């Protein structure tokens, strides 16, 4: 069931801003926050939320998660995939800190928490190392990330943003 108190769509950036390209999701939502995507879209800087991301997704019609992702592409290359297509990981580990997004989505599915339609917008990193800022190839990907987000939001709302 959709939560009427929440906006229909969430665009969620995840990642660690202190580790170069790992923070691409945060850089992207910081850029998106300066744009007007209308009243029905939440732009969320989720950082490294762990299982808390479930509550950000819950009750939405559509969530777009922007994250640094290793899919064997070229640095800066983007994939847009339905989360249902991802092989979900296991929700286990020594600590809460080792649990990644795929594990959290697996848990939400098992608990029958309605997280709505989740799209993963992944950007292939170039450098993951200590430091604030993106490598050139990943920084160049931000406008394409923004265009993709706007295109998906437009599709979902049935009107241009």
């Amino acid at each position: 069931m959709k939560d009427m108190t929440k906006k229909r769509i969430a665009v969620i950036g995840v990642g660690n801003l202190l580790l170069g390209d790992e923070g691409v999701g945060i850089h992207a939502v910081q850029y998106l926050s300066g744009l007007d995507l209308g009243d029905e879209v939440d732009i969320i800087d989720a950082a490294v939320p762990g299982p808390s991301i479930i509550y950000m997704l819950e009750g939405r019609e559509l969530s777009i998660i922007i994250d640094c992702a290793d899919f064997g592409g070229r640095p800066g290359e983007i994939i847009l995939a339905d989360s249902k297509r991802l092989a979900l990981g296991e929700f286990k580990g020594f600590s809460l800190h080792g649990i990644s997004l795929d594990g959290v989505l697996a848990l939400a599915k098992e608990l029958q928490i309605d997280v709505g339609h989740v799209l993963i917008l992944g950007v292939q990193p170039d450098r993951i190392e200590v430091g604030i800022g993106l490598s050139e190839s990943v920084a160049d990907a931000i406008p394409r990330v923004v265009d993709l987000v706007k295109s998906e939001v437009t599709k979902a709302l049935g009107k241009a943003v």
Partner: protein
Amino acid sequence: MGHLDLDINIHHVTRVEGHGNIALNVKNGKIEKCEWSVVEAPRFFEAMVVGRTWKELHHITSRICGICSIGHTLASLRATENAMGIKVNEQDVRLRKLALHGENLQSHSLHLGYLVLPDLMGVGSVIPLASTHPEELKAAIRIHRLANEMSDLVCGRTTHPQSIIPGGFAKIPSKEELMGLKERLIASSDDVNTVANLFHKLRDKLPSFERETEFIALTGEDEYAMYSGLLGSTDTESIPEERYLEFTNEHIVPQSTAKYTKHVRESYMVGALARVNKNYEKLSPRAKQIAELFGLKPVCHNPFMNNIAQLVEIVHSIDDSIRLIDELLSDSYRYYKPEVKVRAGRGVGAVEVPRGILFHDYTYDENGVCVAANCIIPTNQNHANIQKDMEALAPRILDKSKAEIELTLEMLVRAYDPCISCSTHFLKVDFVE
């Protein structure tokens, strides 16, 4: 009869940066190697903050850890405020304490519900509990959800607080919002009891292992210290937070790129058990009842009881939050604009976060630019204690099956709720064929 030969190597290789491994090798019935090894990225904290201004540091350092971001923010702010002599009024200190309780509740409910329960139930992950114990799991999730709402309300968002700034707050919750939060905290009693009852049924699954060690935690005269206090030890006299280096004594060991710490013994422990051991009398009456139910009395030297200490702290954090809200609402609650006069100086901020005592230490120049910094996280302080526990525990469990030995050693590490790889998490994409 124990194993004559045994070769256990548990690799928990996280995505990129850090990992913790357990190695136990037995030959001809003799332990040849028993090692908890941690490989973390070289310490980067100083490089991250030196050259940045006092307005930026708490925002940057809150990003170190997604689970403990409120604690990092508060340790950072307290270091800055101590360095510049910035005073925070009593109301805003209460709000900050509320934020810390929110983080403690978030972290403990997740750890106990999602990582410890599967161990005690003998299942590989939390997933099977969704069908075998749905009510208990949902209760743990509701506590976690409430804790998230609490953090959102006080800090501006669930992780990486925006509202808390040097000298106080940029924005505070309304009276009505605080009253609503109080009602939800009171209503969480049933969920807490549900989770506590399940743990009570499973209490015999916690190994009865003990090894004497030192426990270090903040301590105070008036309350169960989380936000500030003296550095307390179960072995020695308390000292002020700015003398923390006398307690931590960081040193390098061969099996780890993370530094180890020690005080008067070879190792010490920080975290919920250390806090309960040091400050038991300051727990809320209801939290003490839970401790008594599980036979947790100070000084408890069983590291597996850290899980129960977390359960006790869940109750304490709820009760103390209700008390804090009552105090906030009984005074003339209003917004105070922080006043900051930038000056050169050095300051230390010690704050209790879910995994134990966290230190931030900054030196600023006269323009408020950071020129030196240090940070010691709780997990680094626990590494040596995990190693010593493992050395003491392994010989006592050699008569168990290999699978049981592996599980027991993993449970030991998990009991410390370590922060091994919080700094990176990125997605490895594999498509379903």
